[in-house]
């Protein structure tokens, strides 16, 4: 039977959080909470831009949060953002791949012409909560809808690079980590995305 001189030593051997470590764990939880609260809405919108369906977007964001918390919460907080977006982008790509397979499979089934991307929406989802004037809101909404459509039409890697760099504000190195590619590739994807969007949107922008 091993003998322990101090409680922290015993806790280290038996892998129990020692009293001194409890404060650190609490700080880590608070920091993770703050981090997730800060990025969750942007992450959701980025997933929604890519997937269109809000429920699918919610699922991938939730999944990314869980995976980050379970597997990487012990990592330094500076690494969380690229890690989180890497998990999120992987989730989005997986879902898109599954959709493609499902669509191909559905073609072979008789009487299955419905497109899962164009399911009937709840009319209440489109009711505005209030805020800016209706015409201004409409203009902004239309502009955003147009932008979302163009982003969805971009190749996946270009869209990822554009959203991570421009919407989320990651630098080139962080974007490269999030996308799992080199910094040079990020620059290329981003540049192509910006030029493609500019050509599509015209000088009005």
């Amino acid at each position, binding site marked *: 039977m091993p003998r322990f001189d101090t409680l922290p030593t015993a806790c280290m051997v038996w892998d129990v959080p020692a009293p001194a470590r409890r404060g650190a764990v609490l700080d880590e939880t608070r920091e993770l909470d703050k981090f997730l609260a800060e990025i969750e809405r942007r992450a959701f919108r980025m997933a929604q831009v890519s997937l269109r369906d809000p429920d699918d977007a919610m699922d991938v964001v939730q999944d990314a949060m869980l995976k980050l918390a379970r597997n990487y919460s012990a990592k330094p907080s500076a690494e969380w953002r690229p890690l989180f977006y890497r998990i999120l982008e992987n989730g989005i790509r997986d879902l898109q791949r599954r959709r493609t397979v499902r669509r191909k499979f559905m073609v072979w089934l008789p009487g299955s012409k419905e497109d899962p991307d164009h399911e009937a929406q709840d009319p209440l989802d489109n009711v505005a909560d209030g805020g800016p004037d209706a015409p201004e809101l409409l203009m902004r909404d239309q502009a*955003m809808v147009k932008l979302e459509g163009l982003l969805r039409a971009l190749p996946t890697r270009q869209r990822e690079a554009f959203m991570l760099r421009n919407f989320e504000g990651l630098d080139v190195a962080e974007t490269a980590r999030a996308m799992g590619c080199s910094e040079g590739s990020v620059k290329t994807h981003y540049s192509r995305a910006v030029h493609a969007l500019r050509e599509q949107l015209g000088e009005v922008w």
Partner: protein
Amino acid sequence: MNEHIPDAELRVLERRSRELFHESVDGLDMRVRSRLTQARYAALEAAASSRRPWFLGKRVWAPAAGVTAAALLGAALWFGLPAGDRSGMTAADNQPSLEDLDIVASTDESSADAIEMLQNDLDFYDFADKAANPDPAV
């Protein structure tokens, strides 16, 4: 074809698209915000349980508690309940108590007769006791 677009125009596009995106984030409805908050709490809970030592987790204790409860129940049934003072008792001594349990537990017509017989037995023992020890005062 890309070379003709001035950098300044590209910067305008970046800024404008960023503004639109952030406005759309601010405009998310309460239902979505609430679901995101719930997802965050679930993630924090997952982080807390991943930090917990393995032997403090529910996954370990729930099956262990189940096995212990089953073992205790098995032991209680095997040795009989209530145990009481078992000194000097044989296995045959336990048998009548199980029969009594059958009488009480069964609901058919014959069980009513059995209870009546048990009552008659008690009356007989009461009578025999009084006959053997007559009260001097009476």
